[in-house]
């Protein structure tokens, strides 16, 4: 026989008991390491003797903001992230609209177009390294066929390397944007589209009045995910250029890794990481505000 006290106890604690596995796991493997890293960022610590910390307060941060390399890395990260968001969303939206309209073989096309998202980043880096090869790469070959002079490897050319990285990145991530937007497009009520068409609205007008407001929340959240993923992307960039040449593709995460594992300065690496994380947090908060305002306007 259960008493109401038993039930009260159960109801109160059950959710927490259920949440406990994930909560404890994240605390142990994500949040405590994160606090550790925060502490490291206020110390001078070498990779060679990682247990010896000297408290230096804000010195690591001060040093970073004085270094032109770091300012440059912020700049590169900004360009890279904005380009990823704009291009992945733009191409993804275009592809989704294309795949939404009926045509023969649509199912197969939908499946095929998503494949790049599934490719392991290391394999992507490997194949693009070969595609970009200066002498034997098919990328330069195609440029020559189109009548351009193409003798350099874009990955080794400071003015081109970021573009080369972006091409590989967008190739890998646009399918995800496209699949997610496509599923949102399918949620647009048919009756609304038809009603607008009967009222004599053109295709673009229908898109603006009916389709866009429906898919906007999805596009917004997608934009946030792509931003965050671009801020933390490591494998692809590191394997293609290691942040070079002369810092042309040196994003914050690459800079973090270089500071910690190339220059063996764990304190400075941690400080770069904290700044990157702060940027991600600020963007998330702004995003939450903007999207709630947009949703309010749409209602």
């Amino acid at each position: 026989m259960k008493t109401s006290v038993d039930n009260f106890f159960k109801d109160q604690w059950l959710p927490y008991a259920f949440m406990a596995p994930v909560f404890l796991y994240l605390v142990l493997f994500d949040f405590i390491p994160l606090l550790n890293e925060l502490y490291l960022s206020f110390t001078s610590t070498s990779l060679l003797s990682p247990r010896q910390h000297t408290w230096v307060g804000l010195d690591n941060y001060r040093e970073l903001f004085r270094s032109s390399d770091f300012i440059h890395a912020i700049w590169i990260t900004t360009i890279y992230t904005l380009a990823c968001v704009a291009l992945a969303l733009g191409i993804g939206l275009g592809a989704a609209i294309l795949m939404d309209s009926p045509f023969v073989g649509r199912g197969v096309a939908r499946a095929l177009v998503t494949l790049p998202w599934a490719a392991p980043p290391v394999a992507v880096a490997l194949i693009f390294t070969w595609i970009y090869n200066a002498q034997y790469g098919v990328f330069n070959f195609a440029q020559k066929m189109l009548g351009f002079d193409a003798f350099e490897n874009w990955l080794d050319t400071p003015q081109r390397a970021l573009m080369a990285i972006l091409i590989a990145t967008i190739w890998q991530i646009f399918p995800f944007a496209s699949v997610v937007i496509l599923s949102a497009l399918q949620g647009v009520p048919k009756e609304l589209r038809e009603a607008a068409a009967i009222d004599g609205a053109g295709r673009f007008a229908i898109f603006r009045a009916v389709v866009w407001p429906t898919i906007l929340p999805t596009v917004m959240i997608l934009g946030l995910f792509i931003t965050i993923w671009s801020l933390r992307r490591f494998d692809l960039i590191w394997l293609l250029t290691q942040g070079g040449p002369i810092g042309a593709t040196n994003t914050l995460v690459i800079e973090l890794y270089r500071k910690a594992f190339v220059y063996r300065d764990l304190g400075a690496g941690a400080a770069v990481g904290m700044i990157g994380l702060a940027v991600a947090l600020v963007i998330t908060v702004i995003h939450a505000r903007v999207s709630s305002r947009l949703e309010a306007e749409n209602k």
Partner: protein
Amino acid sequence: MSALPNALRITTVLALLVLAGFPFYWMFVTSLTPSSQLFASTPQFWPVWSEAGVYREAFQKIPVATWLLNSLIVAAGTTILALSIALFPAYALSRFKFAGKGVMGLSLFATQMLPEAMLVVPLYALFGQFNLLNTLTALILANTAFTVPVVVWILKGAIDGVPEEIEEAARIDGCSPAGIVWRIILPLIAPTLAAASVIAFFHGWNEYVFAQTLVSSESLRTASVGLAGFVGELSTPIHTVMSIAVIYTVPAIIFYLFVQKYVVGGMTAGGVKG
């Protein structure tokens, strides 16, 4: 939507498919290109099937089998651990109202902001204390920390779709909440569970940073690290390298095709509702 001429639409679709598929095709063609043709001024655009022996050679000359086995162990371990941790929290987030729920959801999302590269140093120290450095277990534990939030989201999305009335009968019969999750929810969300497994599996399969830094023995090298070693290295013939890349990529692609719709569903459910 017929204003766009059909021919133009088909052409655009084909162009898109060629762009999406080309790097895969190129990886495959390169693996089946004779060494004499690899460094020709005009690339070879079609596979030469008689070159297929390169795949056998790759296994003979390079410890590909060991790499793949290690990746398999890491990926399978990550899957089992992530799923067993995620099930009950996913149910709690879907069904219960409780103080701190928002914070829990937010901390799950926050993990998506952490770059693996940033946690390498503290995790190295943590695993060092437990004597887990240079073990595949360390990789499983580290990968799970990044996979589990995604798995929780996806499972929560599926549980949201299960009508609560189904649980009513079992509750009246005196079934405990854990029993309900185990006996009623679990079978109903089986397809999503399978999809979440595949996602967790390939997170482990693809992972590179931890495998590169937390493990040093050659015998424990995963395929991602083994393959990454070929980037910029010139002594291994490029067709051999590409054959290994093909072997490493194909399983990821095939399985992904099966679970694609669940990934989208989970992401929209988790993302939009918070």
